[in-house]
């Protein structure tokens, strides 16, 4: 057993070192894999806030991932076609600037989470899972049947979007962007978890009655957490679309929601670096086992079963004891 904070450092360092070594060995594909892991980890960090800290088992986080993806797709496609998004009453043009795309992705997915959360948080337990799933599926079928942006075929962006001062087409530089974003979000989420807000969210998860009887408006508390959670996953969606230079309704599918959940369970529910470890191992398994068999997810299933039955805290929980926080 090692302290969680050292384990977190180790996980973060590994995620950084692998692509740097790959760069030396001239293996750009490995860099792309690491980038994918970082982005999916970010999506998991978002869900982990709702699911791990808040106990809100959202089975529809693909909605925010997809909205982030389409925010990128729509803005970038207009930019590459030189066709404004709208001209009246005021002109809105597309953009290929990542920071702008990220902002739009965050705001759009936060708004969607506000709407979906406001409705679904009135339910709990299995109903909550089903309602969030239903909303996710609505977005899926909407994009499938919406011809303006490719419908079922999705939308290709020919050139990766730009970030001032960085050559985003260079795999290692794009990885750098994703890694920095992931670490920045992890830093903020860590602060959030320790804040009065995080304490209240976690307390309400453990015992809702207790939170209510000390005067906390649990519904509002959870709604705010849900919105932040959705916004983070939305940001990940925008990065994911940029990685692939392609968006399609698949981003909205319930498989995506399930995958994001798998990262968390695999890595450690409510553990800060759980989704990072989970996503990295997932990508590793996909790469290694996927080469052996098309049906590699059978093995993933077995591993998940093992984790759920024998290592409840996932990878992080299995390796590190939870730290008891002290004051001062």
């Amino acid at each position, binding site marked *: 057993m090692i302290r969680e904070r050292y384990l977190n450092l180790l996980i973060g360092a590994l995620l950084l070192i692998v692509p740097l070594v790959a760069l030396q060995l001239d293996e750009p594909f490995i860099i792309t894999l690491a980038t994918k892991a970082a982005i999916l980890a970010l999506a998991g960090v978002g869900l982990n806030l709702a699911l791990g800290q808040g106990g809100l088992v959202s089975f529809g986080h693909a909605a925010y991932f997809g909205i982030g993806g389409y925010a990128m797709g729509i803005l970038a496609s207009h930019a590459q076609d030189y066709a404004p998004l709208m001209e009246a009453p005021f002109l809105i043009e597309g953009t290929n600037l990542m920071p702008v795309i990220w902002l739009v992705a965050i705001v759009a997915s936060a708004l969607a989470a506000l709407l979906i959360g406001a409705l679904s948080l009135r339910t709990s337990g299995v109903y909550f899972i089903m309602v969030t799933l239903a909303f996710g599926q609505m977005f899926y079928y909407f994009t499938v049947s919406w011809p303006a942006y490719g419908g079922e075929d999705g939308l290709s962006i020919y050139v990766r979007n730009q970030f001032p001062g960085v050559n985003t087409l260079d795999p290692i530089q794009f990885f750098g962007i994703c890694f920095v974003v992931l670490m920045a979000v992890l830093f903020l989420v860590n602060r959030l978890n*320790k804040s009065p807000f995080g304490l*209240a969210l976690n307390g309400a998860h453990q*015992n809702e009655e*207790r939170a209510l009887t000390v*005067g906390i408006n649990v519904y509002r508390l959870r709604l705010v957490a849900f919105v932040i959670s959705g916004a983070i996953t939305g940001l990940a969606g925008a990065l994911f679309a940029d990685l692939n230079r392609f968006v399609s309704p698949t981003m909205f599918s319930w498989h995506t929601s399930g995958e994001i959940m798998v990262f968390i369970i695999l890595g450690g529910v409510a553990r800060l670096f759980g989704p990072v470890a989970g996503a990295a191992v997932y990508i590793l398994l996909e790469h290694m086992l996927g080469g052996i068999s098309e049906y590699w997810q059978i093995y993933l299933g077995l591993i998940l079963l093992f984790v759920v039955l024998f290592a409840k805290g996932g990878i992080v929980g299995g390796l590190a004891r939870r730290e008891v926080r002290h004051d001062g």
Partner: protein
Amino acid sequence: MTDSILRVDNICKSFGALKASDSITLDLKPGEIHALIGPNGAGKSTLIKQIAGGLKPDSGKVFFDGRDVSQHSTARRARAGLGRTFQISALAMDFTVLENVVLGAVGQSGSWFRFFRDAMKDTRLLERAYKALDRVELRDLAHVRTSELSHGRRRQLEVAVALTLSPKAFLMDEPMAGMGAEGSQALTGFLEALKTEAPILLVEHDMDAVFALADRISVLVYGKIIATGSVDEIRTNPEVKLAYLGEEDAA
């Protein structure tokens, strides 16, 4: 009746044909312990829930601190100063003892919309939390995980969490339940001192404790209050004897 801190006015609540609360009226005055007793299924828990806010009465009103709080949520009533402890400890079991009381302080201060300050380093929250822990003598166990506490200690912690709210009244649902004779006695002494700070509406099965502690007792049977009065009045009330204490006396 303006001097009562908490007043339940003609509350009715039915579940189908069952009248769980049948025109209940009772009040809690400053400085007193008002005990609510009654046989199992008399509707004590239903009444407590309606006072605390988890359950809406079909008719009737709840007044707290001079205001009609009938339409207010549980959280709002808590913020107004209604401190509650539960029959089955309602605590965040994975939290440390200290985190549980800090949670209370967070609720009290309304600071749960702070996102970046470390709650466990916030001196104001900690001060309030430690003060509450000192009151129930749990400071030494501040960093113990709550799930590792004994049953009696959890009850003490429950009271400490309620104390962080600086309540104007306490609502205590069987605080003695499952405590040994010694713990029960210690808690009796503690509640005796506590009532001068804020009055206590006490639901309790332990008759010795009730008769030792209560200034007034109300007896609830089948959703109706059949008597309210001092310990002696209740002891000698024939109706109460028949409905509630009778079984014990006959034995």
